[in-house]
């Protein structure tokens, strides 16, 4: 039996879980399902989960990936945490704007800006 390689990298920075993706394209159902379960597992281990998802290097994103972000955001909120997004390419940010999900998520130009004041409101 082989284990699929991880599709996210998680680094703890001063209590904030910084997540990056290993794929350029987050489109197909199989990888999104894997990303979702890896993210949920990571979030469930943090109290409260302060999560920064950095989209550096991501070129494509489907509505199924947006669905995973929504699910993850709800779980983080339920556990008293906070989710921030950063480094979203303009073409992908446009998908957030079209779907109006830019109203649901807090996003920042860079991971450094997203880290400022994280967890303090």
């Amino acid at each position, binding site marked *: 039996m082989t284990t699929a390689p991880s599709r996210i990298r998680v680094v703890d920075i001063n209590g904030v879980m910084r997540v990056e993706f290993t794929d350029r*394209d987050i*489109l*197909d*159902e*199989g*990888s999104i399902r894997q990303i979702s379960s890896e993210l949920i597992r990571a979030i469930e281990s943090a109290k409260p989960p302060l999560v920064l998802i950095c989209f550096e290097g991501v070129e*494509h994103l*489907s*509505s*199924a990936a*947006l*669905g*995973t972000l*929504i*699910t993850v*955001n*709800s779980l983080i909120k339920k556990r008293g945490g906070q989710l921030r997004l950063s480094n979203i390419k303009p*073409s992908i940010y446009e*998908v957030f704007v*079209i*779907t*109006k*999900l830019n*109203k*649901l998520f807090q996003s920042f130009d860079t991971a450094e800006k997203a880290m400022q004041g994280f967890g303090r409101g």
Partner: protein
Amino acid sequence: MATTQGDREGSIDLVEESRAIEAIQRRIDAVLAELNYAEQARFGIRLSLEEAIMNGFHHGNQKDPRKSLTVRWVVTPEVATFHVTDQGEGFDPDAIPDPTLDENLEIPSGRGIMLIRTYMSGATYHAPGNHIEMHYRKPPRS
């Protein structure tokens, strides 16, 4: 997977297998690049195709692994047309609630068709609703 033919025009039967879907996306994107479709147009076409294919497998074929889906395409220097046909019973795309309303923002699904309608120049579901035809037309040169 069944047949592929030509570059600018072709048809392929797919089962839900990410490598095959990725391969056809790359093949179509190469044709679009060759015909000088703008990067933003290629982004939207790729996203729309992905959404149409995923909708077909999930909502059309109900994830039945015995069912396949056909993608047909014709790409000219001006217009790229795609047909995605699943083996399901079809559905009414207008019955999907508006995902951009505040009360629906936290619902994780239901955004694929609105993305297709936004990025493509036109999209039509043919009765009984298991066949979407969509096209992208290059904007006129200024």
